[in-house]
C-alpha cells in the first residue's frame, strides 16, 4: 500500500488499513515485557505455570485483543465518551465512599455480583480523557493562565480527594500527577508551575504531620531509615535491595534467586517482581527491561507528538504519563528510593487491575495513532 493510497478519502476508515496503522513494534515490546513477567512468575512459583505465570500470560493475550479492538475504535468515539467515562468514574467513587467494601482498613472496592473492582482504576483513564476533551476546546491563552484553569483543577481535585479518602494515597497521587502532566503539557504558565511546586513543598510537612494516616507516615519514616526497623516495615525495602544488589552484573541465574525462592522478598509476584528479575538476571537483565520500558514510553509519546488533534495529543500523552509514573514509582520503591506505596510494575507484575488499565490506555494511544489525521471538531471549549 502506497502512501498516496492512504490519502484517498475513506481509505483510512477501512479496517485492514486501520490494523496496519497500529504500531506493531510497540505491541511487540509490550509482549516482550509481559513475556518477561510470565518468565519471572514461572520462576518464583518454583518452575510452575500456576498460580501466576499462566493466568498472567492468558490475561495479557485477552487484553491485547481488547487493545486492538480499542485501537480501531474511532478516536471520535473516545472523544464523545470522554465526559461520560469521567462522570461514571466519579459516580463509582462516590458509590465506594457510600457503599464500598472494606478490606484491610481501606474502602476501595465495589462489588458487582461475585466480582469486585476498584473504581479508582476507571478514573485513571477517565481523568486523561476528560482533561484532553476539555483542553481540546480551549485556546492557548486559557490554558496558559486564566480563571478558566479552575475547571481542570477541580476536575483533578474531586477524584483525587475521593480516592485519597479511601484511603489509597498511591492511586490518588498517580491521578493527581497524571492530571498535572496533562495541564502542564497543555501549556500551563511556567510561573504557575513554579508557584505550584513551591506551594507543594510548603504544604508537604503539615500534610505529613496532620493529614496522613499513621501507617502512611510510618512507611515514609521507614523509607528514610530502613535500618531502624529491619524486621518490620523496613524489612521489605531491605530485602528488596538485598535481592537487587546480590544479583550483580549477570544475576544468580534463572530460578536460582534465593531471596525470592525462599520467600525473603515480600510480594514477590506483584510489587517486587522487578527485584526478582534483578536477582536472577542481574544488571544486564534490569537494564534490558528498563530499555524496553523506555521504548514503550518513547513510542507512546511519539504517537502523541504526531497526532493532529489536540485531544489525541493530550490523551496519548496522559496515558504515557500514567504508564511512566507507574514504572518510575515502582522502580524507585524497589530500589529503596521511594516509600513502599503498593504500585506495581506495569505488564511485569502479576495482577489484573493494572494490566487492564494500562492496556485500555494503550488501546486509546493506538486509536490516536490510527486516527492521527482524523478531524475532531465538535469541541466547543465548554461542557457539552
Amino acid at each position, binding site marked *: 500500500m502506497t502512501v498516496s493510497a492512504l490519502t484517498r478519502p475513506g481509505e483510512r476508515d477501512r479496517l485492514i488499513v486501520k490494523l496496519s496503522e497500529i504500531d506493531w513494534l510497540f505491541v511487540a515490546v509490550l509482549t516482550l515485557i509481559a513475556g518477561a513477567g510470565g518468565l519471572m512468575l514461572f520462576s518464583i512459583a518454583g518452575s510452575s505455570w500456576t498460580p501466576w505465570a499462566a493466568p498472567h500470560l492468558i490475561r495479557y493475550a485477552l487484553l491485547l485483543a481488547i487493545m486492538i479492538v480499542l485501537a480501531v475504535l474511532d478516536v471520535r468515539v473516545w472523544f464523545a465518551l470522554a465526559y461520560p467515562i469521567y462522570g461514571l468514574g466519579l459516580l463509582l467513587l462516590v458509590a465506594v465512599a457510600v457503599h464500598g467494601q472494606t478490606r484491610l482498613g481501606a474502602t476501595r472496592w465495589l462489588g458487582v455480583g461475585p466480582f469486585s473492582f476498584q473504581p479508582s482504576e476507571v478514573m485513571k483513564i477517565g481523568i486523561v480523557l476528560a482533561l484532553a476533551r476539555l*483542553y481540546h*476546546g*480551549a*485556546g*492557548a*491563552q486559557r*490554558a*496558559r493562565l486564566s480563571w478558566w484553569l479552575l475547571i481542570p483543577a477541580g476536575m483533578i481535585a474531586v477524584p483525587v480527594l475521593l480516592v485519597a479518602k479511601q484511603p489509597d494515597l498511591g492511586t490518588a497521587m498517580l491521578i493527581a500527577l497524571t492530571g498535572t*502532566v496533562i495541564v*502542564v*503539557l*497543555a*501549556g500551563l504558565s511556567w510561573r504557575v508551575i513554579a508557584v505550584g511546586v513551591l506551594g507543594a513543598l510548603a504544604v508537604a510537612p503539615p500534610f505529613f504531620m496532620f493529614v496522613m494516616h499513621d501507617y502512611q507516615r510510618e512507611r515514609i519514616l521507614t523509607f528514610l531509615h530502613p535500618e531502624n526497623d529491619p524486621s518490620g516495615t523496613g524489612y521489605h525495602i531491605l*530485602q528488596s*535491595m*538485598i*535481592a*537487587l*544488589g*546480590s*544479583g*550483580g*552484573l549477570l544475576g544468580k541465574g534463572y530460578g536460582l534467586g*534465593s*531471596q525470592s525462592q*525462599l*520467600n*525473603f522478598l515480600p510480594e514477590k509476584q506483584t510489587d517486587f517482581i522487578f527485584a526478582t528479575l*534483578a536477582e536472577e538476571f*542481574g*544488571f544486564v537483565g*534490569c*537494564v534490558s527491561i*528498563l530499555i524496553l*520500558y*523506555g521504548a514503550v*514510553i*518513547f513510542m507512546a*509519546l511519539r504517537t*502523541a*507528538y504526531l497526532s493532529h488533534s*489536540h485531544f489525541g*495529543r*493530550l490523551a496519548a*500523552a496522559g496515558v*504515557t*504519563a500514567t504508564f*511512566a509514573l507507574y*514504572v*518510575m514509582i515502582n*522502580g*524507585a520503591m524497589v*530500589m529503596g*528510593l521511594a516509600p513502599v506505596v503498593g504500585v506495581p510494575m506495569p505488564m511485569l507484575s502479576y495482577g489484573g487491575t493494572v494490566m487492564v488499565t494500562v492496556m485500555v490506555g494503550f488501546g486509546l494511544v493506538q486509536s490516536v495513532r490510527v486516527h492521527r489525521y482524523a478531524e475532531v471538531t465538535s*469541541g*466547543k*471549549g465548554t461542557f457539552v
Partner: protein
Amino acid sequence: MTQPAIFFEEVNERQGVFHRRAILLGAFAGLGLGALGGRLGYLQLVETQRYEKLSASNQFNFKLLPAPRGLIVDRNGAVLAANRPNFRLMVARDKGVDPEATLKTLAEYVPLDDARQRRYLREINAAPKRAPVQIMEDMTWEQFSALNVRAPELPGVTADMGEVRVYPHGGAFAHVIGYVAKVNKEDVDAAGPNPDPIMLHPSFRIGKQGVEKAFDVALRGKAGAQKVEVDANGREVRQDPNGDIPAVPGKVIELTIDADVQLRAEEVFGAESGAAVMMDCRTGDVLCMYSGPSFDANKFVRGLTGAEYRELALYERKPLFNKALTATYPPGSTFKTMVALAALDSGYDPNTVHSCGKTWAWGGRVWHCDQAHGPQTLHTAIATSCDIYFYQCALAVGPDRIAKVARAFGLGQTFDIGIPGQKPGLVPDTAYKRRVFPKDPVWHPGETPSMGIGQGYTHLNPLQLCVQVARLANRRKALHPRLIKSIGGVEQPAGSSFGDLPFKPEHLEFVYNGMGAVTGANGEHIARATGFGQADLGLGSFLMAGKTGTAQSRGYGGGTGAHGAVGEWSLRDHAWFICFAPFDNPRYAMSVLVEHGGFGASAAAPKAREIMRVAMLKDPEITAQITKPAPLPEVPPAERNQDDLPDGPEADPIPTPGQPT
C-alpha cells in the same frame, strides 16, 4: 455566522507548546529511567559484594554441631569418662504448631503426664520462636524410632541423637575427673567478652570440677557447623553437605591413675570418710587419688534435683569435698619422720636415749604418751612412735629446722597437678608466729613438743603426705606428683624431673630403715612397734614399710581422752598411714587418711595394705617374680592330628601363658 471557538493562531500556538513540552516530558522520562539505571548500577555493580553477603546470610544458616568431648582414660587406657548416644525429643514453637495438641500427641509415645505437659507448655511458650525445648532425654530406641516415623506429621517436633557424658565407674573417680553440667551464667561470664558460641548450644555441657574443668577447652574440641539453607521463616529447606565444617573432636586426656587401684580404694573405704593417694615413687605418677565417700558424677550431668543436692551437701562425711586435696588435717605421728630427719640433719646423735614412762613433766605441765615405752633411741622411737622421745627430740632441734625439712618434703605447699582445689595447709615456724600473731609473736617453747608429734598448728593434706613418703622411699629425688600423663597424645613432664633432696643419703637411709622397723619389713622386731604385722602383703617377700599416725581432731582437755574408734564419730581421732612397698626396692608410696577413723595402725594401715596389694599385683615385674609359670607340655607339631587343624596355610602357635611379653 458562527464564530470559531478557537482561532487558527491559537491552534498553532497550543500545538507548538505541546510539542516543546512533550519533548520535555520525554526528557524527564529518560532522566527518570536513567536515574533508575544509575541506582541499579550502584546496587548491582558497586555494592554487590555487600549485598551478596547479606543474601547468603539470609539464605544459609550454620547449625553448630558440638564436637565429641575428649575421653578421659587411665594409664592403661581404661575409659573413665566417655560419651554415649542420647535420644532426645524437642518441641519448638512455630507458625502452624499447636504446642498443647503436639504434647498431647507425644504423650501417646513417651511418658508425659499432665503436670509435665503443663510445665513444658509454659517453657515452650516462653522460649523464642523455633527455639527447641527439650521434652525428653534418653528415650529408648523404640520410642525414638516411633517418633521419627511420625515426625513429618508433627510440625515443630524433632527427635535427634546427641551425645551425653557418661562416667562408667560412677563415683570412684568423681573427685579427680569432676563432672560436666549445664552452662550457667557464671560460666559464660568467666569465658570473657567473646564466649565460644558453642557454650550457648542447648546440649553443650561444661566441665565443672576436676580434670573436666581444668582441661575443659582441650576436651571440648572445636565445634563444627552444618550448613543448611533456610527460607524466610527460618525453616530448613535443604542441607548442603559440601558446606559443612567438620567438628574437631576433643583431645583425649590420659591420667596417671590406675583404675584398678582406685576402684579397690573405693571398695576398701566403703562408707568411711577419708582419702588415699598413691604415687609411683620412681616417677611421681599418681596411681590413685581417692576421696571417700564419693558421689555419682553422672547425676550432675543430667542435673541434680534440689533434694539430691541437699542430701549430698548436708551429709556430715562431705562427699562433695575432695579430701585428698582440699582438706587439711594434723599429720600426727607420721610427722615424726620429718622430726627425725631434721634431728639427724642438725647433728643430733641418733643413739641418744630417752626413757618413756608414759608421762613426762616439762615446762610446768605433764606430757603424755599412749604407753610406757621404756628406754628408746631415735630408731626405736620411730618404730614405737614414742611421743615422749619426740617431745625431747623436737626440743633439741627447734621448730625452724623441722619446718625446713618438712618443706623440703613438699609439706605445706601445693603442686601443679593440673586440677584445682589444693589447700596448702601449714607447716609452722617462728616466722609464722611473728607474721600471724602480732600480739603474741613469740614461739613458746611449749609449742615445740606438740609440733614434734605432728599436732599443734601443723595441718597437711593427704597428697602432701603421699609426696613426703614417696620422697622418703625414693631417698634421692625430690619427686613431684604427676596426674596428667598426656593431653591429646602429648606426654606431660614426669614428676621425677626435679632436683635431689638436700640431705645426706645416710640420714635418708636412717628414716627409711625406721619406717621398715615400724612394720617389721626390714626384718627387725621391735617391741611395741606400732605397725608390726602390716608389712605382709601376702605377696611373699615383697613387704611394706610405713608410719602410722593418730591425729587428734580436737583438744583432749589435759591429755585425758578416749583415743580410737569410740564415742561420737565427729570427735574421734583421724587415722593416718603413710607407706611404701616393696621395702627392698620401693615402687609405690601411699598415704591413707581415715577421717575420724581412730588409730592409724588399725583403721588406716589395713586399708593401705589392700590398696597396695592391687598396685603390686598390677606390676608385671613384680607378678613375674611371684608367679612361677608352669610351662605347658611341648607337643611336637608333627604329632598333632592334622585333620583338626583349619585349612589355613599355617595355624598360629599355641600361646604359652604366663610368659612376659
